[in-house]
């Protein structure tokens, strides 16, 4: 959820910065609205994530209008539903420019749709700021700007940070299973993970691919159980990770460690197995209690898997999440926050982490990428006794 919060806010923030750079005037919002156009996957297979983007975007626009607006004018978000379809996204972006005559454009959700929008932006010579482009090497247009925080080579950076962290943990995995959807941006990062594991001498006990939209994860879960990997890299998008977890639970199996690449932000929170397995009051892991007392965990979001996710990130940040400073961060123009140098790679791990790195970068503090891996490894080590470890970007 914070990842989505950040990426949508970042995109809006980037637009704001862009406009402010051109017109350095601030006043109470009045006059004709500044129209920002975009599409989102409000229906179709990517809708669960698209909907969260919509909610976050609406909240941000509301906050913006309650303050100074944009250039002293209120902001109007012209949002259309691309039904998770790149072909429709292309048509709708044409409409946004030619019919709705929007002033600025923001990208849709997910790589394929962003590519479609990018083609339209290029044709009309418009700036496009987008936030969830999973294959940066495909973006050839000069006036496209990613605000989501993935590094230029996520197939290297994401696996590197994850495997660095695992290698530095108390019990590093010796075998790995890479299971992945064939959804383009997810697939190529998972292939990067495969390479990274090979370079580090991990024994690959399974490599399984499925088509996006696969219904039956039972046999995949059975193969994982049969292969007994120490660590499972799940290149899943949206609900796929949940479906795999469900299938594994049905056969009474859970790998010691599993990493999920791009899960939809909501379902992991809502997954009943995770909620059921919350420790009762007073039985929280000591490291977790300590982290809470020290304010390193912003809030208890519920669900063992998700808590671990938050815990790891909070631990990796080594700082307060959800404090005043962090809240202010949401309103800060993203142009000022742009990560520099090595931080870009570390930022790929997770957007909340990236947010912190940006913050640290702004404050002039250097936090090398290896440090992030070390912090993460420490997080993994400290929760290493719990039965179900899910780390998610």
């Amino acid at each position, binding site marked *: 959820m914070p990842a989505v919060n950040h990426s949508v806010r970042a995109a809006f923030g980037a637009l704001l910065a862009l406009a402010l750079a051109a017109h350095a005037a601030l006043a109470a919002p009045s006059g004709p609205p500044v129209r920002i156009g975009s599409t989102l996957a409000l*229906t*179709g297979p990517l*809708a669960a994530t698209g909907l969260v983007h919509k909610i976050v975007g609406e909240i941000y626009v509301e906050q913006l209008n309650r303050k100074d607006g944009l250039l002293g004018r209120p902001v109007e978000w012209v949002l259309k539903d691309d039904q998770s379809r790149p072909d429709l996204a292309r048509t709708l972006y044409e409409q946004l420019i030619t019919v709705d005559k929007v002033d600025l454009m923001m990208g849709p959700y997910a790589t394929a749709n962003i590519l479609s929008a990018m083609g339209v932006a290029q044709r009309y010579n418009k700036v496009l700021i987008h936030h969830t482009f999973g294959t940066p090497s495909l973006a050839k247009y000069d006036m496209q700007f990613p605000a989501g925080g993935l590094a230029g080579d996520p197939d290297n950076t994401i696996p590197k940070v994850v495997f660095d962290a695992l290698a530095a943990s108390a019990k590093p995995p010796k075998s790995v299973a890479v299971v992945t959807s*064939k959804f383009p941006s997810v697939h190529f990062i998972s292939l990067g993970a495969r390479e990274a594991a090979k370079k580090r001498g991990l024994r690959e006990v399974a490599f399984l691919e*499925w088509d996006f939209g*696969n219904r039956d994860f039972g046999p995949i879960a059975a193969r994982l159980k049969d292969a007994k990997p120490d660590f499972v890299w799940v290149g899943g998008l949206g609900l796929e990770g949940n479906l795999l977890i*469900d299938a594994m639970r049905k056969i*009474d199996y859970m790998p010691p460690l599993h990493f999920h690449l791009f899960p939809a932000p909501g*379902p992991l929170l809502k997954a009943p197995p995770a909620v059921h397995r919350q420790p009762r009051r007073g039985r929280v892991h000591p490291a977790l209690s300590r982290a809470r007392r020290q304010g390193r965990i912003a809030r208890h979001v519920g669900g063992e898997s998700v808590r671990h996710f938050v815990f790891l990130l909070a631990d990796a940040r080594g700082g307060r999440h959800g404090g005043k400073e962090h809240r202010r961060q949401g309103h800060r123009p993203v142009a000022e926050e742009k990560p520099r140098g090595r931080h870009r790679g570390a930022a790929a791990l997770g957007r909340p982490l990236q947010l912190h790195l940006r913050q640290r970068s702004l404050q002039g503090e250097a936090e090398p990428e290896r440090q992030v891996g070390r912090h993460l490894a420490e997080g993994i080590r400290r929760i290493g006794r719990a039965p179900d470890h899910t780390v998610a970007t």
Partner: protein
Amino acid sequence: MALPSLTLLGQSLLSGIFIGALYGLLGLGLSLSWGMLRQINLAHFALAFLGAYLTYQLAGAGMDPLATLAVIVPCFFALGALMHWLLARFSVSAFNSLLVTFGLTAIIEALIQWIWTADFRRMESAYGEVKFRVGGLYVALPELLTLAMALALSLAAWAWLRHTYTGKAMRAIAEDAPIAAAFGVDVRGLSLLLSGLCAAFAGVAGLCLALSYTLAPGQIYAWLGVVFAAVMLGGLGNPLGPLVAGIVIGVSEALTMAFTAPAWAPLVSFSLLIVVLLARPGRI
């Protein structure tokens, strides 16, 4: 290449049988309405998901998921009969019914999204956590229930069509409706009855979906291709056909996933369909 273990083989077989049973259950109503009423009812999938969401809602309000059938089945029966009445009222042909019911699917999807949003929904129930261990194999209760319901409904529909007067009359309507009417068969009434039953089957399939799967409105379309393949392989209007064909497809897919690349699994159902169409072109 190392040989897969017997446990993997057994677990994959079970997984294939269970998902095949769901294909069969989803295909039952579709097959009957297509084969006997000449209506290709794409909205059947949307009704199944509507049933799943209603189960989710009622279970969330404290009802036992199985008890929700007492509400859903009669409501869906009425809904199915109403849909058929409308299609018959406007004399919608078989091909046009495909288009009309596709439109209905989009409307039902929008309705689901309006009420429950596009976010994923997962029903929490006591059944979801129950599983049995047989040797080294695990059998989850929701999937066992799905298999039991698919078997029960398919056999009941088969027995009804084969051994009862109304069933025989229904088959006569499917064969030649005007002649059946000339012999005193109530074509209109029986067609409404069968449509209602088909929609009720969709409601039951919805319960099984809600028990085993996380729900999202867009997933309506994910089941369409493979269930159509099961219906066509099983033979239109044959109540046992979709179940048998569904299990064959499910097991083939599961074994493909277990022994080769899981990404090849979707090819199985359509390859089987092509082989059957080539070998027995008069099958459908």
